[in-house]
């Protein structure tokens, strides 16, 4: 009953003209960004953060805008996956496996229709789950002490290990790089300057937003130079009308994908990527009797698409209740909330319910809007793929530069961003995933803080780390996950097309 009352309150927040307009704008912008090759939700949210700051939105509105972009980009991501075989980000990789073959067979419209409906079901499951479980988890979260948080961060880094199907050594190294970068600056515990080379500009450490825009947007610009112009041919897309027969055929896959994705998404760390990969693998094991997966089976589009949308929504749960993001994109949103002086965590639900419930309500609205945008109006977005790059990319580039310039008003911030761009480019070329780097930069500080807080409380006795049942349970879960990851890592995912190609 409480939940319903809160939800009603949330709808009154979400239906305010400003917030409604922001949600609509976010849906369109998100779908647009998501549909661009190589640009996914992380980029979308990263590009729009400066906008959220500069519009001087209050935290609720900013969060609504970015979440709409997030959901929108998850929908839009499937467009370039299906039509161009270029996923916007990791979770969308699995959609290319059967989506692109369908497009090649002249069934691009069917693939887009099925995946659109799958996205809707996945997101709806996730939003319902968010409504039901987030308040419960928030109540439990108050019992999380520093030692439990530390265990949670360990779990977060464990989940990214078996995710992307990329070389696990490289994923681990990427996480280490992120963690190392996170230690630059004044140590939060004692104020000691670490790895700053005496530069005051580095005393606050690397601004995660600068790092993220550099890693994704700037490296994408360098990647862009490698595609030869006019090389991309776009298959014809007819009218996209979902047919009952198609939908019913893949309905099971959608529901299974949603559930698997949701569960994976709640895990802190890289839950969203994990959700897409697992939902595809599970569906393949359940349904692939005739070995049609990988050759254009609609169920192979439906499952991962439902899965990654469900996981993305679910990833908001740990972000809001514990302040530990469940995906790369929610990590970016967390960075934004913190710079708005909003501290996600159990108290957010008590102190600022309008933020949480306004967000949840606007997600319901966004989801319906997105279904409409992405089935009947999809022609609009496939046409964006035909916009000349020379008009589009300089704009994206400049928004990145000016957005970062507006934060720091310094050449230094821009140079740091470019340096992260080069790092991102090299890592992507060498098939490192960038998500662990971002998670490292973002969570490294909190991970260290919580470890040190725990030991401050115990006066240095390390046994405090395993004294609560929460931390013991989390460590156990980490161990189970690692074992499962090894079992699952038959390396079949490595055939997934590379984002960069």
């Amino acid at each position, binding site marked *: 009953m409480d939940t319903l009352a809160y939800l009603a309150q949330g709808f009154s927040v979400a239906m305010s003209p400003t917030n409604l307009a922001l949600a609509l704008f976010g849906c369109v912008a998100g779908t647009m960004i998501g549909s661009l090759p190589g640009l996914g939700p992380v980029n979308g949210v990263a590009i729009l953060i*400066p*906008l959220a700051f*500069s*519009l001087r939105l209050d935290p609720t509105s900013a969060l609504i805008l970015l979440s709409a972009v997030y959901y929108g980009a998850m929908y839009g991501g499937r467009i370039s996956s299906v039509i161009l075989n270029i996923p916007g980000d990791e979770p969308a990789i699995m959609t290319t496996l059967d989506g692109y073959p369908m497009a090649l067979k002249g069934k691009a419209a069917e693939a887009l229709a099925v995946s659109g409906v799958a996205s809707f079901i996945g997101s709806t499951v996730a939003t319902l789950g968010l409504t039901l479980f987030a308040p419960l988890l928030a109540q439990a979260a108050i019992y999380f002490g520093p030692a439990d948080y530390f265990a949670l961060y360990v779990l977060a880094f464990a989940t990214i290990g078996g995710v992307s199907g990329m*070389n696990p*050594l*490289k994923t*681990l*190294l990427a996480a*280490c*790089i992120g*963690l*190392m970068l996170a*230690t630059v600056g004044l*140590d939060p*515990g*004692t*104020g*000691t300057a*670490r*790895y700053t080379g005496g530069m005051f500009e580095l005393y606050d450490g690397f601004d995660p937003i600068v790092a993220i825009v550099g890693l994704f947007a*700037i490296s994408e*610009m*360098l990647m*862009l*130079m*490698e595609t030869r*112009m006019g090389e991309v041919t776009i298959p014809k897309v007819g009218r996209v009308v979902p047919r009952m027969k198609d939908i019913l055929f893949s309905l099971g896959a959608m529901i299974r994908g949603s559930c698997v994705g949701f569960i994976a998404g709640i895990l802190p760390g890289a839950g969203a990527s994990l959700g897409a990969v697992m939902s595809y693998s599970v569906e393949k094991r359940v349904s692939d009797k005739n070995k049609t997966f990988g050759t254009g089976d609609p169920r192979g589009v439906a499952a991962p698409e439902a899965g990654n949308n469900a996981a993305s929504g679910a990833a908001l749960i740990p972000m809001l209740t514990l302040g530990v993001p469940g995906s790369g994109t929610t990590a970016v949103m967390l960075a934004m909330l913190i710079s708005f002086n909003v501290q996600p965590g159990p108290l957010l639900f008590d102190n600022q319910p309008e933020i949480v419930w306004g967000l949840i309500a606007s997600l319901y609205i966004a989801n319906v809007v997105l279904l409409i945008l992405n089935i009947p109006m999809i022609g609009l977005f496939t046409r964006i793929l035909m916009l*000349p*790059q*020379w*008009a589009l*990319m*300089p*704009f994206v*580039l*400049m*928004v990145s*530069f*000016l957005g970062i*310039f*507006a934060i720091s*008003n310094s*050449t230094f911030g*821009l*140079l740091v961003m*470019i340096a992260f*761009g*080069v790092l991102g480019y*090299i890592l992507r*070329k*060498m*098939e490192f995933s960038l998500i662990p780097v971002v998670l490292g930069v973002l969570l490294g500080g909190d991970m*260290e803080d919580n*470890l*040190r*807080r725990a*030991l*401050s409380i115990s*006066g240095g006795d390390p046994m405090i780390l395993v004294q609560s049942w929460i931390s013991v349970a989390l460590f156990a879960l980490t161990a189970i996950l690692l074992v499962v990851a090894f079992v699952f890592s038959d390396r079949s995912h490595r055939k997934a097309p590379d984002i960069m190609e």
Partner: protein
Amino acid sequence: MSDRIVGLLFLGLSIWYGYTAGSYEASFGDPLGPAAFPQIISVPAALVSLGLILRPDPDPTWSRGVVALRQIGALVLFVAYAVLLIPLGFGLSTFLGVMLFAMLIGASWLKGALAGIIMAPALFILFDVLLGLPLPLAPSL
């Protein structure tokens, strides 16, 4: 080979990173202090780098020729834009930045100039006027 080079690079980096951490000390504060966490990270970082040296993946195809030149050109452009934004002022540097970048990704002179002419004022209005984020307008040489 690329993996080996990167592995070696990161191995060196992790060792330096862990070693440098040893010099951070505080005579007060928490029991763990500022050195411990970096030292803890440096261990798996070094081990993983070593693993990369021993079991490298096949090389990616690095860009060559014109593509590589264009990428270097883009980097030079990025750095130049960052450095010159304040001295040259927003209008001129953004016009040039947009035009040159458009040309680097294959547009003609004319298209590049067109993009620059439209985008520089549009961006200024977007950021400075509408969003209230002051941009350095005039050249300040």
